C-alpha cells in the first residue's frame, strides 16, 4: 500500500519534470524563432488594422447629385441640411439630364430632385411637397442606407420647420426610435469584437498546428516519442505555452479595440478574459487536431485557414446575420466555435455582462473544447502509425 503510494508519487514527479522541461524548451523556441511571436502578436495587429479600417458597413460620403428646378429659400434650406451632414457630399447639378449622366458614370450615388413647385407646395400645400430620390441600387445594402438617411434628413427638416413656424406637425402619431447599446449605430462597434473572435480563431489554430507540424517535419517527433514522455504531456506542453502566447495576442487586440477603435467596453474585463480563455483553448484544440492530420507546416497552415478562419468569418454572425441565413446553414453555424465567442464578445463590449447571453454561449464553448481535446487525445495515440 505504502509502496504503491510512493511509486505513484515518484511517477507524478517524473511526469512533472518532463512537462516542465518540455515547456521550457517550447518557450526557448518561441523566443529564438520569431515565427510564433509573429503569429501571436503581429498577425492580430495587421488584421485588426486592415479589417478595422477597411471593413465598414456604414455609408459615408454619399455623393448626392442635387437638381433644383427653381431655386428658392425653402429649397436652399433643405439642401443645406445635406451639406451639413458628414454622410453626404452634395454635387449641385444644372439639370436632371446631367444628374443622370453622373449617376450612370458612377460619379454620383443618388439623385435628389426638387421640382419647380417645391417651394409653393411645401409652404401651402395640404400634403408635404414631393421630392424625387433616385438611388443607384447595385449595392443593395448601401442603397437602403442612402434611402433611410435621406428620409431622416427630410423628416428632420420638416420637423424643424414646423417648430420654427409654430405649427404642430400634421401627424397624429410619431415614432421616436432609440437605438440601444450602439447608439451611434457605428458598425465598427460590433465589427471589431467580431473581428477579434475571427482573428483569435486563426491564431489559436495556427499556433498549435504549425508548431506540432514542425516537430514532425524536422524529425524531432520521432525522437520525442521514443523517450518515456506521455502523449498527454506533449499535448499539455504545447497547450500551455501557446495559451500564454495567445492570451498575450488577445490582450493586445482588446487594447487596440478600446483605445484605437474607441469601441466602448461596458462589461467586466474579468468576464472578457475568462470567456476568451475558454475560446482560446477551443481554438488551440482545433490546431492540435489539424496537426494530427497535417505533418508539414505548409499543409497545417493551409488547413488552419480553410477550416477555421473562413468558416469563422462567414458563419460566426460577425458580418452576416445568422438569423437571415437559410435554416440548413443556420444548423451548421452551431458547429462554429467563433459563433459563441462573437455573441459573448459583442455583448460584453456593447451591453455589459448579460448573463443570459454569456452562460449558454460559454457552456457551448466549454463543451466544444472538451470535444476537440478528446478527439486530439484519441487521434494522437503514441506511435508513428
Amino acid at each position, binding site marked *: 500500500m505504502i509502496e504503491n503510494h510512493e511509486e505513484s508519487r515518484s511517477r507524478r514527479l*517524473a511526469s512533472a*519534470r*518532463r512537462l*516542465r*522541461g*518540455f515547456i*521550457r*524548451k517550447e518557450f*526557448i*523556441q518561441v523566443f*529564438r*524563432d520569431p515565427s510564433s511571436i509573429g503569429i501571436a502578436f503581429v498577425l492580430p495587429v495587421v488584421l485588426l488594422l486592415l479589417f478595422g479600417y477597411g471593413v465598414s458597413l456604414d455609408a459615408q460620403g454619399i455623393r448626392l447629385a442635387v437638381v433644383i428646378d427653381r431655386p428658392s429659400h425653402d429649397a436652399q434650406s433643405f439642401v443645406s441640411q445635406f451639406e451639413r451632414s458628414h454622410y453626404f457630399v452634395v454635387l449641385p447639378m444644372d439639370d436632371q439630364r446631367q444628374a443622370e449622366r453622373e449617376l450612370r458614370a458612377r460619379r454620383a450615388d443618388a439623385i435628389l430632385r426638387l421640382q419647380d413647385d417645391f417651394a409653393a407646395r411645401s409652404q401651402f400645400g395640404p400634403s408635404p411637397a414631393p421630392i424625387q430620390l433616385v438611388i443607384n441600387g447595385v449595392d443593395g445594402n448601401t442603397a437602403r442606407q442612402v434611402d433611410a438617411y435621406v428620409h431622416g434628413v427630410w423628416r428632420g427638416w420638416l420637423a424643424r420647420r414646423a417648430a420654427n413656424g409654430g405649427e404642430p406637425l400634421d401627424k397624429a402619431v410619431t415614432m421616436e426610435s432609440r437605438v440601444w447599446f450602439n447608439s451611434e449605430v457605428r458598425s465598427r462597434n460590433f465589427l471589431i469584437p467580431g473581428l477579434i473572435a475571427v482573428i483569435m480563431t486563426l491564431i489559436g489554430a495556427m499556433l498549435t498546428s504549425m508548431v506540432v507540424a514542425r*516537430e514532425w517535419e*524536422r*524529425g*524531432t*517527433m*520521432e*525522437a*520525442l*516519442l*521514443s*523517450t*518515456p*514522455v506521455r502523449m498527454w504531456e506533449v499535448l499539455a506542453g504545447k497547450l500551455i505555452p501557446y495559451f500564454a502566447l495567445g492570451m498575450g495576442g488577445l490582450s493586445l487586440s482588446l487594447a487596440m479595440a478600446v483605445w484605437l477603435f474607441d469601441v466602448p467596453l461596458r462589461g467586466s474585463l474579468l468576464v472578457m478574459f475568462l470567456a476568451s480563455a475558454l475560446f482560446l483553448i477551443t481554438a488551440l484544440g482545433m490546431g492540435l487536431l489539424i496537426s494530427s492530420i497535417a505533418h508539414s507546416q505548409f499543409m497545417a497552415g493551409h488547413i488552419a485557414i480553410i477550416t477555421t478562419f473562413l468558416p469563422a468569418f462567414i458563419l460566426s454572425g460577425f458580418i452576416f446575420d445568422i438569423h437571415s441565413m437559410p435554416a440548413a446553414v443556420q444548423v451548421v453555424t452551431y458547429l462554429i466555435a467563433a459563433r459563441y465567442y462573437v455573441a459573448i464578445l459583442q455583448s460584453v463590449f456593447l451591453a455589459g455582462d448579460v448573463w443570459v447571453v454569456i452562460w449558454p454561449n460559454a457552456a457551448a464553448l466549454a463543451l466544444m473544447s472538451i470535444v476537440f481535446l478528446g478527439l486530439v487525445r484519441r487521434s494522437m495515440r503514441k*506511435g*508513428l*502509425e
Partner: protein
Amino acid sequence: MIVPPPSLTETPGRTAVALAFADVHKSFHRGRSTVSALRGTTLSVPARAVTALIGPDGAGKTTIMRLAAGLLRADRGRIAIFGMDPRTGARADHAYIGYMPQRFGLYEDLTVAENLRLYGDLQGVPHRQRTARYEQLMQMTGLSPFLSRRAGRLSGGMQQKLGLACTLVRTPKLLLLDEPTAGVDPVSRRDLWTIINSIIRDEGVSVLVSTAYIDEAERCHQVIVAHDGRVLAMGSPLELTRTVAGRTFSIRTSIETRRGWQRELSSIKGVVDVSTLADSLHVLTARDVSDLAKMTHERLPEAIVELTPARLEDAVVAMLTPPGPAQETTSSERDAPGHSQPHRALTPMITVKGATRAFGSFLAVNKISFEVRRGEVFGLLGANGAGKTTTFRMLCGLLPPTSGQLHVAGIDLRSAPAAARARIGYVSQHFSLYGELTVFQNLRFFASAYGLGRRQRAQRIGWALDEFDLVSVRNAVSGALPLGFGRRLAMACALMHKPDVLFLDEPTSGVDPLTRRRFWRRITALAELGMTVLVTTHHVEEAEYCDRLVIMVTGRLATSGTPAEIRSFARTPGHPSPTMNEAFLSIVQASQDSGGDP
C-alpha cells in the same frame, strides 16, 4: 585508429538476449495499396554486445528499429526486450530503450546544452546525476567547446554526435541506432564508433545498429543480414564470412589493365562479383575457386592469381546476388552517350585554377587547382564541410567563384555558365526529381528541359529505361520508389542530353553494397566511352574506383594523386599496406595539425 569493440569473452552472460523478434509481420497501408515491410522476421540480439543490421534499401531495417522502439505495433508475431513488450516495457528501468532515429530530431533553435537538458528532463534523469553525465558525454563527443552553440549551427557530424549524446543521457539497456553513420564523414564516423564501443565496455549496454557500411558490420559481435522483409543470415562476422571461404582470389593490376581485366573477369561464368581492392581486383566466385583461377589464367595470361581470404562483404554480396549469370553487359557499350571517341585523350575537360569562394569572411573553398582529363573518373573526397559541394556548385555554374578560373569543356564558367551547363549532367545529393511524376514523366520532362527534339527524346528515353533497368517501374510514381531506383532515375535524367561531363554528388550515400557496385560498374563503363566523371563520396574505399582523386580539408586541397599514390602517403615501416580509409584519416589529421595557414 578505430577502437576495437570489447571482445565477447570478457563479457559474462553473453547468452542473455536483449531483443528478440519471433515471426514478426508488419505492413503499411497507403491509400489502397499495401506494402509489406516485414514478412516473418525472426532475429535475436545478444545482450552486452554490438549487433549490426545490414541489408539493401527496403529490407525493412528502419521498420525493425521502430518496432523495437515501440513506435509501431506488429501485425503478427512477438517482440521482446529483455522479456518485455516494447510498447509497455520502454518505461521499465531494466528494459529501458535508447533510440536514435535515422534523422535524429535535434531542436535546431536550442543550444547543445539546452538540447541535453531537454532530453535529461524527458528521460527523467535525476538532477544530481546530470552534471557528471553531461560532462562525460561532452568529453566523449568532443562537444564541450560548443555547449552554447545552437544545434542548427553544428556540422553534420557534430549534430550526429549530439544526437547520440542526447539518446545516452540516461544509460539505456538496449540502444537502437538507425544508420547513425549515414552521410557522416569518415572522421566523425570513427568518433561515433569510439563512443558506441566505450559505452558497451563501460556501461554494459546492448546495441543494435543498422548500417550501410560493411566495414562497420565487420567490427561488430553479431551481424544480421536482412533482405526483403526477412532475415537471410545471422551470426558473427567470422561465421558469415566462412560461408564463402575458399571462393575468393585476387589479381594484381595497374591503372591501365584494371578496367579491361575487370570486364574480362566479370564475363567468366561462375564469377559472382569483381571489386577493386587497393592495387588488386578481388574476385568472388560461385563455387570452389581452383578451376576458375585456372580459367582466369588462360584468359589473362599476364595476370598473377593469388588466393586471398574472403571478407564479410563477399558473404553479403553472395547472399544478395540472385543466382544466374553474373554479368550482363550494359547497353551503353553499344550506344555511347557523349562523344564517341573511345580513347582517353589528354584533353583537359575540367580545369580549376586558384578557385576561391568566400561566404562573408569564411572561405568555403580556398585557392584550389586541379585538372581532369577526358574519360577520367575523378574523385573529390573530404569530411563534411570541407568544401566539396561548394566546388561542385561552382563547376556547375550555380555559384560564381570569388576569384580564380574554372573551365568545363573549354568554356569559362564566369562568362558563359549556361553554355557550360549544356555540356554538364549533374546529379545532386538529394532527391531532385519530381516526386509526383512517374519515372517516364520525369524522363520526358528532363529531355524537353534540355531541348531535345521529339525523335531524339523518344530515343533517349528508351535508352535510359533500358540502360538503368527502369522499364519495370516506367509508370510508377517516382517519389514512392526505393532509394536505389531514385538514384538511378536521377542519373538517367542527368544523362538525357548526352553531356560530356557528369557530376555526381554523394551518389552512393545510404545505398547498400550491391547497388553501389552496380553503380560503379555503370560509371566505369561510361568513362570508358569518353565521359568525364567528377564524383564526391563518403565511402572512402570507393576512391579505389577513381583514376585520380583529391582530398579536401577545410576548403583546401590536402593532397591529390592516384589511389595508389594516396595510399602510399600513409605507408610506414610498421604498416606497409595501409587501406584507403587509414590513408584518408592520416591525411586529414596531418592537414588539420599543420594548422590553418599554409
